[in-house]
């Protein structure tokens, strides 16, 4: 009798194990800014990733494995982010998605690199992929690739001679400020003002007064979403009528929503835009709005692209190899025709930086309009 029970138990265990193997999942640990000053960023990033996962899983997953993602909140605090990444790595994920804020990535990337786990990030600070870490892969341009485009626009198209630069005093802002000043100066444009602001700053009256005093003929604004909206409102209140130029964030949908009419006229370069006149992006925008009922921003596209990047790398390897994923992605060119989830053709270099088309855009009547499509740097 005991033998019968034992046989049944062993058989049951075998069935459970076999079932478990069949249901094996690709575990992705997402660590993002779901609250704090970066809440808008993290919320969009997570939503985009979840949309991609739903699409991929609905089609059978990656190499037959469904994707399962857990998302932890950094509270937009690098210290918290580091702890969460360590916790995520302890659970042996296939890959790590996020954070988005460069300051957080700077303190977490070492951990993912040491663990040999691919870390698909949303950060844009130039230095992130120049730190010699082997597992970082971007979802958007680094500042060293996007700033030359916007500097060329200001110097050649806008014919700006004196530009004031307003930047947020953290890793993201400092990296952007250093790069744009270098790029503008190289093109003979003078820096009429160099104004730093604080993360989560709420009152910009003094900054705008200083901006007015610079006598610049254009202003380059490089702040996070909420701060961008606040300074645009303050500029509108002050009656400052200068070309307001930004890089992606300033033309973000959330900035337009928060700033209202103050965002009209803002121009700049966008690496990712849900308004781009490209069919896969149009489809992404439509699907995103159907699922979440709001317009996705570039951070939602980063999250979405992050998941599809992991998929593309895995499919290139033909197996789920966590340690080999970063290597498979580096040097990879992904065609949107073959991987529609990548939205645009993209090339990933050996540092994890991307090259692909980008756009010049302008905000008009509360909407972003793409005015020009720029080719990849290495066409």
């Amino acid at each position, binding site marked *: 009798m005991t033998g019968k029970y034992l046989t049944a138990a062993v058989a049951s265990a075998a069935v459970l194990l076999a079932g478990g193997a069949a249901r094996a999942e690709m575990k992705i640990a997402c660590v993002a800014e779901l609250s704090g000053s970066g809440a808008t960023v993290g919320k969009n990033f997570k939503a985009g990733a979840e949309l991609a996962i739903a699409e991929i899983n609905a089609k059978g997953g990656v190499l037959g494995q469904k994707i399962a993602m857990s998302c932890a909140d950094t509270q937009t605090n690098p210290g918290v982010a580091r702890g969460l990444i360590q916790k995520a790595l302890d659970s042996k994920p296939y890959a790590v998605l996020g954070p988005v804020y460069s300051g957080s990535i700077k303190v977490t990337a070492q951990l993912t690199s040491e663990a040999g786990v691919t870390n698909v990030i949303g950060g844009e600070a130039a230095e992130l992929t120049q730190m010699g870490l082997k597992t970082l892969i971007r979802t958007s341009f680094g500042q060293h690739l996007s700033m030359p485009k916007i500097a060329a626009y200001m110097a050649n198209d806008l014919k700006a001679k004196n530009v004031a630069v307003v930047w947020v005093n953290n890793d993201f802002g400092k990296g952007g400020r250093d790069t744009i000043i270098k790029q503008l100066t190289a093109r003979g444009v003078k820096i009429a003002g160099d104004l730093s602001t604080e993360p989560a700053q709420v009152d910009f009256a*003094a900054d705008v007064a200083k901006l007015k005093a610079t006598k610049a003929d254009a202003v380059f604004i490089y702040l996070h*979403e909420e701060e961008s909206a606040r300074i645009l409102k303050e500029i509108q209140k002050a009656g400052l009528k200068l070309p307001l130029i930004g890089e992606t964030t300033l033309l973000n949908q959330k900035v337009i929503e928060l700033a209202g009419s103050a965002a009209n006229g803002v121009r700049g370069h966008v690496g990712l835009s849900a308004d781009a006149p490209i069919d896969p992006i149009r489809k992404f925008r439509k699907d995103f709005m159907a699922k979440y009922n709001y317009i996705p921003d570039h951070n939602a596209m980063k999250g979405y692209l992050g998941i599809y990047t992991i998929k593309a790398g895995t499919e290139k390897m033909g197996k789920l190899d966590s340690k080999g994923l970063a290597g498979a992605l580096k040097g990879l060119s992904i065609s949107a025709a073959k991987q529609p989830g990548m939205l645009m053709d993209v090339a990933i270099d050996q540092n994890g930086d991307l090259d692909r088309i980008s756009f010049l855009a302008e905000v008009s009547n509360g909407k972003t309009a793409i005015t020009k499509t720029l080719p990849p740097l290495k066409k």
Partner: protein
Amino acid sequence: MSSFATLVIAGLATGAIYALIAIGFALLWQASQTINFAQGEFVMLPAFFALVAMGLGLPYWAAALITFVLAAVLLGAMFKRLLVDPMLKHGVIPLAMATMALAIFLKESVKDLYSAEAYPFPSLVPPVNVNVLGTNVSLQHIAIIVVALVTLVALTWLLDHTTTGRQMQATAQNPTVARILGIPVERMIMLTFLINAVLVVIASLLVTPIYLAKFSSGETLGLAAFVAAIIGGFNQLRGAIVGGFLLGVIDNLAAAYVSTQYRAAVPLFILIAVILFRPEGLFGRKEERTV
């Protein structure tokens, strides 16, 4: 000069908000020895009441009206009955800690029940400029200063020229004697809490179009108003008013002429100086305690 004038006016507008909130600190302290560390969150919350009401399709004025009622009930009456009254028996420190806990509770509740994101909020006036003596001044700043001044004048008139106001002052000065004189002390204290609720709603409706509606927006405001109340004098309404305006102007001028990075430190330096050389605040009166 134009830039300086613009900065001063912007500072006065910010200071007017600080003053409204700081008065709440002073009122509650005088009426019931309550230091309300959730005062900043009390300013954040009404904006979300209004957003919810407007989300239901109500016009701004109706949403504002509902916000006043909700704030009076929740941030005035219920705050006093459910938190202050039970905790005050145990002393000022446990009550202060309870208000800190309340601040966290309110913040996290808004984050969980509404959103962690920022939201735009309609302004009382359009975002245009008017020319005042050759200087372009934001109509929004003027509106803030005017509304705040009208509120402050009305409050001062209520306290100084009405029977209810004098009874409130008597209650604040000596509740025991006030009770002997037949003043309904409990009702006067409740009235103080209701006035504070009205003040935070006004501050909320004025500041949220600029700061945006966000669960964490009370942190900055609460701290600034607390510092303003101490600088001006925690036990005097005029102290809180002057402290608020002073802090707003100094903050703006420091950001423009000293350093944006160190702007947050300047008010704290003033606070340290006031505590060292005039601990009762610029307009406060000395209080002596016996043991």
